[in-house]
């Protein structure tokens, strides 16, 4: 078996695969483990509030707790679709910011935490 292994070394390094898989899964699990319990409720209520002014689906608002040095950061990302702006009666009128500030939210780009 060892001679075969020498001929086909690429089959062998399963330990490296194990290490990479563990690093990814543990990074994810450690982040969610430290998340405070109130996040789901906060997210739900924020969606309700935002939905009074803008058409929004539950998955367009994301709440995260991150960390930068010694500071905990509460991130709230709201994706707003221009086409779905809701006219509001007797309430504050939603005025979209200038086009330069309004940028498409790319769900796949990682949110860059303020340094």
């Amino acid at each position: 078996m060892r001679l075969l292994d020498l001929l086909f070394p690429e089959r062998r390094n399963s330990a490296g695969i194990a290490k990479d898989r563990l690093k990814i899964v543990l990074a994810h699990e450690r982040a969610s483990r430290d998340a405070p319990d109130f996040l789901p409720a906060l997210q739900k209520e924020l969606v309700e509030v935002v939905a009074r002014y803008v058409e929004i689906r539950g998955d367009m608002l994301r709440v995260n707790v991150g960390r930068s040095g010694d500071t905990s950061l509460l991130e709230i990302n709201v994706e707003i679709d221009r086409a779905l702006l809701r006219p509001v009666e007797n309430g504050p009128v939603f005025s979209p910011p200038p086009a330069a500030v309004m940028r498409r939210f790319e769900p796949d780009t990682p949110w860059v935490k303020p340094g």
Partner: protein
Amino acid sequence: MGTAGGRRHRFVGEEGEVYLAKIIVLTSGKGGVGKTTSAAAIAAGLALRGKRTVVIDFDVGLRNLDLIMGCERRVVFDFINVINGDAKLNQALIKDKRNDNLYVFPTSQTRDKDALKRDGVERVLDELKDNFDYIVCDSPAGIEHGAITALYFADSAIIVTNPEVSSVRDSDRIIGILASKSRRAEHNLDPVEVHLLLTRYSTERVKRGEMLSVEDVKEILSIPLLGVIPESESVLRASNTGTPVVFEPESPAGRAYVDAVARFVGEQREMRFVQPERRSIFRTFFGRA
């Protein structure tokens, strides 16, 4: 068995001696990684160094420490009997026949696992603390009531881990629980000291890239390494005969546990059994499958 001045239930050691035991938990999350073997070996190793040590089985319903320690036929009363006040601590403790410093505290085989009430456990541990240098707690697998109770009072935790993905992941989980749910965490005391004990390690397989290395596991879990125990036939032989593996001087695993215990009490020991043994030319080319 006298009662020294002001002490409760002095039943081990000389009168007038003062003990305040350190509580060590052997835990892992995952089952079958060698917690009980390691608890028996570490406790026996501490006793060999002259430390008065008791090893407690927290695995209610699946008692096995008594078998590994070779005292299964001497169990009369157990942990639950003592918690419920049906027996005195000195009636339940079993003195090891090989070493005077070593005691085994077996658990119950039959009662339900919720019988380990936290305040009852605390009362028993407090009484043991006065009589021993070390209290070694053998945790059940999982993260349920029994495992949490076993780690709750710990001053120090030995995380028993195999170089394998599910074991490493579960160890990480347990380290998180120690940092948030232990008594030390809940009372804002100094955190539980955690140590990595890597068991069932095969240097040959690591060399072939088939097994996570010590460095890999250390890097992933980022806790200090207490020891590496090689996969060894002597572990099964020792459990067959009910002998903690440190009592077998010829066993590589036994020697590795002796080193780990020495490091635990603060000695510097070089890490053995992490480099493959030298092999003949013949075996290098045609080595075992």
